[in-house]
Structures are given as C-alpha cells and as structure tokens.
C-alpha cells in the first residue's frame, strides 16, 4: 500500500490560516490502513484545528467526511454537493487524492494534510517500511523476492557494498542492508551462483526517470 505521514500541525494550520470554513476529507484506502487519513484521523485533526483556533479567539468551522477512495472518479462524485461551500478542502489521502479532487472541482481549493512517503507495509504494529520504488520492471525474482532497488540505499544490483556491517546499511544502524539478507539467503540455499551472473544496467525508462507514467489497458478502454 501507499504509506504516508500526517504533516506537522503547524504546517496544516498555516495552510488554513485564512479560512473560516473547511472540510477535512479522509479516504478509506491505504491511508486508513496506515492510520493516517481515515475517519478516525479526520476527526482527530478536526478537533485539534477547532480547539487551536478557538484559543486564538477566531472560530474555524470544520466539517468532516471520509469517502471510499480519493483516487477514483466514481467516489469523488460523492463530494460534488459539498465542494464549493468551503474556503478549502483538506485532503487526508495520499498525494493522489487532492490532485484528483482538484481536477474534478477546479473552483475549489484543496490542501494536502499528509506527506506521502512510499510503497510498503507494516512490519510491526505502528512501524511501516518501504518495499517497492515502483521502478516499472520488477526484478525481485533474481533476489529471492527482496528488492535492491527500493531497499538498498544505492540501488545496487551487485551488492553488498563495502559499507555493509552487522547486517546494517552504511547510512544508519536503523536501516537493514538488504544485500546482506540477499547474500545470506542465497548462501544458505546453496544458490550463490545466481548472484555471480552480471546484471545489465537497469533501463530506468519504466521508472519515474522516463517521465510521468500512464497505464493503458486497451481491453478496458471504452
């Protein structure tokens, strides 16, 4: 899923500084799963903003709503009657949400309340970790299902580099060296030879480097 973090409160407050009436719009997709932009977080942010404004002696009217998905025109339809009434709509979805909303309702201002970070999952309660960088050409079958593009700090295809120590990456003791894991697994299995074949330089055109991407499924296009 897409993982995100809520923006610092000060930043959100600054965005809505000149507003008197806002809608905080949550999403039931990935951001609900990573506890950052679902109905619960919408309600928490709404209360915090109301209270903060009240302290200043200026009231902020905050409405709350959470829709199925903000990355889908079908669900975005649901807010049709609401937009236009607000000084701003604060989206708690990933970066896709406020953009789809802006495209659908150009007259309404939309603000992002979260920083979208990576594709990953929860590795323990409350901790999410990156697993994929969306490079567009998956090669993890060569590495026992571990992705060196997203999980090696240098995206090496022939690792580990000389900085690998105690299973950790040279950049931080908090970061696992994925190459250490790949090599150990291959050695354990007796498949070290798999790693000794040189891999060609990656064709980054399928990644973001090739420009903004689009997927067209002919059979579905009407």
């Amino acid at each position: 899923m897409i993982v995100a973090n809520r923006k610092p409160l000060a930043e959100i407050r600054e965005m809505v500084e000149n507003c008197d009436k806002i809608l905080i719009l949550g999403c039931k997709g990935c951001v609900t799963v990573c506890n950052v932009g679902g109905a619960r977080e919408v309600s928490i942010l709404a209360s915090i903003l109301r209270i903060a404004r009240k302290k200043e002696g200026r009231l902020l009217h905050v409405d709350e709503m959470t829709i199925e998905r903000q990355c889908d025109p079908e669900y975005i339809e649901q807010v049709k009657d609401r937009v236009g009434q607000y000084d701003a709509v604060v989206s708690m979805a990933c970066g896709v949400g406020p953009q789809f909303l802006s495209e659908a309702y150009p007259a309404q201002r939309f603000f992002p309340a979260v920083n979208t970070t990576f594709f990953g999952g929860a590795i323990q309660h409350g901790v999410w970790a990156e697993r994929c960088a969306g490079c567009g050409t998956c090669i993890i079958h060569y590495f026992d299902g571990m992705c060196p593009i997203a999980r090696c700090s240098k995206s090496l295809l022939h690792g580990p580099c000389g900085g690998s120590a105690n299973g950790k990456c040279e950049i931080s003791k908090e970061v696992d060296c994925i190459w250490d894991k790949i090599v150990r697994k291959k050695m354990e299995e007796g498949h070290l030879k798999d790693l000794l074949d040189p891999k060609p330089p990656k064709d980054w055109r399928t990644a973001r480097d090739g420009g903004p991407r689009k997927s067209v499924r002919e059979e579905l296009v009407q």
Partner: protein
Amino acid sequence: MSELKSGSNLEKVLKAGHFAFTGECGPPKGANVEHLREKLSHLKGKVDAVNITDNQTAVVRMSSWAACAILIQEGLEPNFQMVCRDRNRLAIQSDILGAYALGVRNMLCLSGDHQTFGNHPQAKNVYDIDSMQLISLVKKMRDEQKFMNDEEIDVAPKLFIGAASNPFAEPFEFRVYRLAMKIDSGADFIQTQCIYNMQRFRGFMKRAVDMGLHERCYILAGITPMKSVGMAQYMAKAVPGMDVPESLIKRLRGAGKGKVAEEGIKFAVEQIQELKEMEGVAGVHLMAIEWEHRVPEIAERAGMLPRPKV
C-alpha cells in the same frame, strides 16, 4: 595480460613484475591549486601512481578529473577515481572521455559513500549504474570502442581499470566472490580497503589465491597509517566495514604521549614489509590521509624506494 591495455606507468610497473606502490591525494575543498601542488610535491618520485579521490565521504571538492589534470602537469601519474553516486551514465561516459583526453590512463571504479555521510545530505542520489557495471562499461569503451548503447566511439579511452575490494565488510564469506565478480567484469587491478587486521587479510588472500584471482588481476593491499589513538578509535567505531583490532589501539596507546604517530608509521612499515612477502599481493596502496608529507619517509623505511623506471 600480454600487450599493454593502457600503457600507464602503473600497468607497466605491475606487468614488469615489480611490487607496486601507489599513493592517494584528496583534491582541495576549493580551487586552491597551490595547496594541491604542495601536497603532490611530496609524492613525486615516491609512488607509481596517485589516486585522486572523487568527492570522498560525499564532501564536495575540486572535481577528480581536474585535479588529475593538475597532477599530470606536475609530472605525476594519476589514478582517476570515479563514484556512481553523483553521475548518471551520460555524465560517467563523458567524464571518462574528458579525463582520458587530459592524459588520464588509470581509473578506479567505485560505488561511493552514500551522500548522507557528506556535507550535502539533501542531494538526490543517482546510482544509475553500480560499480560492477561501471567496470564493464570502462572495459567496453576500451576493448570494443563502444558506448554503453553500442554506438561507436571516435577514439576510445584506453584505461587501466581498477576496482576496490573490502575484505572486512560483511558478509565476509561473500567478499572474495565479489572480488571475483569485479575481475570477471574487467578489473585489471584491485585496491583494497585499509587493512589493520593482517590475520584476517591473510585469510582473505589465501582464498583469493586458491581461486587463482591473483593471476587474473593485480591486487594492491590498502594501508593507512594511524596518526593518533583518536583516529584509530574513530575508525574502529564510526567507519562501516573497517576492522581495527583492539590490540592495535592498545599498541598505539602504549607508545606514549607524542610518540603515537611514530608508532602508527612503524606499524604501517611493518605491514608493508609483511605484504611484500604475501602470496598474491602485487603491491601496496598507501592512503596517507592528509599526511602526504610523511609518504617519502614511509616509502623509504618500507624499502619501496627508488621506484622502478619502466
């Protein structure tokens, strides 16, 4: 290894069977050419080639190829270091051509320290290709006269290709295989990470020799003299993939006030003498970090002078 690949002094020295001795110099943090020339003056005639580092530890410095060109003016032979951190394949290939055009004949292919270590941690990291692929690329440019995309090169760069090896990084058992991969990819010579744990290095070399790697490539052992107890402790703790045995720190500490640097040099000299006798070791790469003026003394005491004329 029949005819010369690049014709560099380093290649000739190694090919003639001499025990090679290379040095290192970091370009200035600025355009202070005088300071660079001063540092280089200590190395002239004392080493077979001088590695010029490429934004080492991800700190911005004068570009490696430009410092190489100054070094050539000074009558020394550079070993142009290039990291994959800062350049994509376009910049890599054009810098290789540019460096060659300026007279560079040796090149060391590296991944490079991650930019979080340096003074611009906010930088975007490139890593378009990795060090293994860089080695193959330089080889392709030299031997096939082709760019990565197979287009013909009009006057191909003929470089003596170097690569690094860290016998002390983990997983240890894999390190000799990684060395073999670099040789398979086209490395003509290897310069290792600084060695402090000689026993472990001996074990590594034994495996390399058992695999016949020393016959396919020249292996130069890396030496960095310790200047102080603080430096030894820092390297032991803070530098990933560095093995500094406690016994060495103890030895340095035991030297007493004002005598630690001398003890560090003494240890380095002993190491060089031991390495000269070690099977499979073709030379020493002396990385005297900001200590270029001590290189002549170390070279002399280790019996590395005079350098062969080939």
